[in-house]
């Protein structure tokens, strides 16, 4: 996660197959550089995004989650991204209550032609998360069980 | 309507050069039942000059006013001068749009123990505020001296119509036209209603400035107007004070009064010319009062189009 002392965030991306994944492809074919912080997962549509996936990524140590889909009104499946907007709005409120900074989980749009926008989004988000520092959710979960600690000490 | 108090940014020009505007604003506010409370210890907005030479201090200069207004608990601020309005509006908008600028401006404000969160204030022009908040119904209701028989060229100038459209069009707004009609007068078909008055060019290049002033005045007179109505002290000054010079340069003899829109409202509300700051203008406007008729002039019949003429396109309402 970090080498030579600088913090490089890990961002898990959920990209829709038709717009944002292709935007990422286009960023590739056009050789637009952006930080190697994003690890992306392809879903058919942002409408497939179960909020569980976001929580899972954070639980597993991600510093941020980036969800990207087609622009509103241009969903390949007509309105999947509207569902994503709704879920994201409620998820954001929930995560805020769990003490997560707003910048950690973001929803953005990029059409298949917007490689630049894709690269810019990743770059910007990387900067924002780098400024926040590591999330490292596991440290919210200290082992307080004296038995387990004792056992761990024995080993 | 309960007595509402608006946080008010008068701007330097209204303090002296265009005091008539300030006087009429206050008089009209009183008559329409709202109050204008100045931002405590406000400073100059920098006009267009400061932005021309030093961008960041220019934003900081304007932001001090926003910060002081917001500190006073305001959620909106009203400016009667279009340049002041735009500077306040643009500073707030740009700070919101460009996070880096926001940080820099707030760093500067910090030196004066101030800070401003963009979006806190809604920046409004007095014209838009009166039309929206007071409303045409109330204006009509309070009209004591309908301005029957007067023809006004509604001159919006630049900075309320552009770059952002805070009225109904960046090119051909109609809100003030409607207001004029509500007050009993007629708004003329004045095509150059958003053409620039020349701004500070009167000081820098007379040729350029007088050319622009002349065009506006000519178009206003051609449109059949008895007076031009402005919403900005700079526009008033250019069209009024320099009207003679423009005449000299083009060999014309125009003599058309240039009024502030609150003076027009005030007249209709029945306020006296004195209460409305008449007398500061170069082209005398008192004569207009004599032109007011006691009843609405007969509606001019739409010119009948010849039989063989092709129909005009239907314009949307």
């Amino acid at each position, binding site marked *: 996660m970090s080498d030579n002392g600088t913090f490089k965030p890990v961002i898990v991306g959920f990209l829709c197959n038709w717009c944002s994944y292709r935007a990422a492809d286009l960023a590739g074919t056009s050789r637009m550089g952006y930080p190697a912080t994003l690890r992306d997962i392809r879903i058919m549509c942002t409408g497939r995004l179960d*909020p569980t996936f976001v*929580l899972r990524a954070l639980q597993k140590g991600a510093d941020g989650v980036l969800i990207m889909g087609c622009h509103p009104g241009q969903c390949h499946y007509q309105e999947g991204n509207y569902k994503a907007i709704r879920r994201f709005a*409620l998820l954001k409120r929930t995560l805020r*209550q*769990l003490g997560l900074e707003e910048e950690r989980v973001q929803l953005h749009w990029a059409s298949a032609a917007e490689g630049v926008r894709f690269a810019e989004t990743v770059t910007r988000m990387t900067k924002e998360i780098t400024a926040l520092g590591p999330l490292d959710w596991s440290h919210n979960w200290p082992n*307080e069980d004296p038995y387990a600690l004792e056992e761990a000490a024995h080993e | 309507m309960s007595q509402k108090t608006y946080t008010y940014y008068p701007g330097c020009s209204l303090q002296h050069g265009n005091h008539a505007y300030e006087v009429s604003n206050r008089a009209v506010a009183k008559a329409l039942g709202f109050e204008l409370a100045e931002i405590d210890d406000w400073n100059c907005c920098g006009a267009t000059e400061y932005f021309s030479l030093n961008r960041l201090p220019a934003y900081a200069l304007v932001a001090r006013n926003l910060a002081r207004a917001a500190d006073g608990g305001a959620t909106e601020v009203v400016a009667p001068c279009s340049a002041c309005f735009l500077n306040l509006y643009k500073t707030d908008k740009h700070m919101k749009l460009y996070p880096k600028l926001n940080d820099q401006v707030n760093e500067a404000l910090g030196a004066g123990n101030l800070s401003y969160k963009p979006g806190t204030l809604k920046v409004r022009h007095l014209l838009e505020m009166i039309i929206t908040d007071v409303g045409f119904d109330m204006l009509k209701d309070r009209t004591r001296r309908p301005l029957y028989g007067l023809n006004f060229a509604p001159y919006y100038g630049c900075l309320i119509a552009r770059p952002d459209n805070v009225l109904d069009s960046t090119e051909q707004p109609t809100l003030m036209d409607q207001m004029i009609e509500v007050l009993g007068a007629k708004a003329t078909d004045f095509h150059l209603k958003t053409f620039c008055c020349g701004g500070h060019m009167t000081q820098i290049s007379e040729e350029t400035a007088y050319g622009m002033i002349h065009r506006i005045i000519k178009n206003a007179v051609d449109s059949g107007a008895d007076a031009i109505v402005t919403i900005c002290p700079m526009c008033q000054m250019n069209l009024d004070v320099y009207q003679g010079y423009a005449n000299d340069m083009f060999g014309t003899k125009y003599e058309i009064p240039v009024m502030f829109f609150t003076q027009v409202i005030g007249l209709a509300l029945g306020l006296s010319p004195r209460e409305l700051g008449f007398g500061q203008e170069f082209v005398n406007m008192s004569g207009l009062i004599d032109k007011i008729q006691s009843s609405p002039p007969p509606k001019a019949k739409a010119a009948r189009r010849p039989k063989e003429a092709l129909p005009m396109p239907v314009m949307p309402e």
Partner: protein
Amino acid sequence: MSDKKGKLGLYWASSCGGCEIAVLALHEKILDVAAAFDIVFWPCVMDFKYEDVEALEDGEIDVCLFNGAIRNDENAHMAHVLRQKSKVLVAFGACSFGGSMPGLANFTDKDAMFDWIYKQSPSTDNPQGTLPQKHSQVPEGELTLPNFWRTVKTLAQIVPVDYYLPGCPPEAHQIEAAVTAIVTGQLPPPGSVIGPDVTVCDECSRTKNEKKIKHFYRPQEIIPDPDVCLLEQGLFCAGIGTRSGCGALCPQVGMGCRGCYGPNEGVLDHGAKILTGIASVLDANTPEEVDKILDTLPDPAGYFYRFHLPQSLLRRRALGNGQKQTAKTGEAT
């Protein structure tokens, strides 16, 4: 089970005692339990000492019904002891299964909680600001209190659990079914939640239609139509994502399901499922419109994680992160 009577243990860790009452709500069926088991440990009802349990052989207890969440050293100690002494350890009730009400403490922190309870709350009179101490000297000697944790955990997060019997509290008919299963040896595969794998909607007799939520209401704000799905009327109901078994008790009387039975099989995060279900049917397509509707649903996390925050994927509110987002008014902390 052989002819020999089995040994039954019941324990309450961090809990309210409702689960104990639920056991008693078996009414005359409790006699069957007594006939089948010797109760070797039930501190809520009879005088047992921890030493008595500790003295048992490993695995000597056949079945232990463990209710309550784990929030201090004592709870953890008993969890380890009972795990060692029991053949079958059942997480009994919502607290031991998902953390439940004690688990809501995970929305805040130990320090903040102590500060409020012992100093700030209006009913407190504590001018010295005294806080509970692990060790305190009194004339009679030293008193000790178990160490209070920063984070509430579930039983399964401390020791391996064989079965789960959710509910706040578990319904009598389910306890009965579970006991019968144990007595007859007809147990589902270890690790199972005992209960049907459908949601509360399955048992709820209200009419369900296609859903579109335009506005949320608090229960005191409207009188709901008695025959129509509560969620469709804008009343929060967790029934869509909550395991059935209760007989849809709450929705049947006009109160939205609170979610005490937890999620269905395979679900990793109960709150996320209710969240997605409800968010999906909001009647808005722009962030602004969506936000307008959501403004009528205060404390969403509180709704989604009312019973299962410690069991959820994130388990608690951030300790160190998130100072920037201090809780806004109207949100649970």
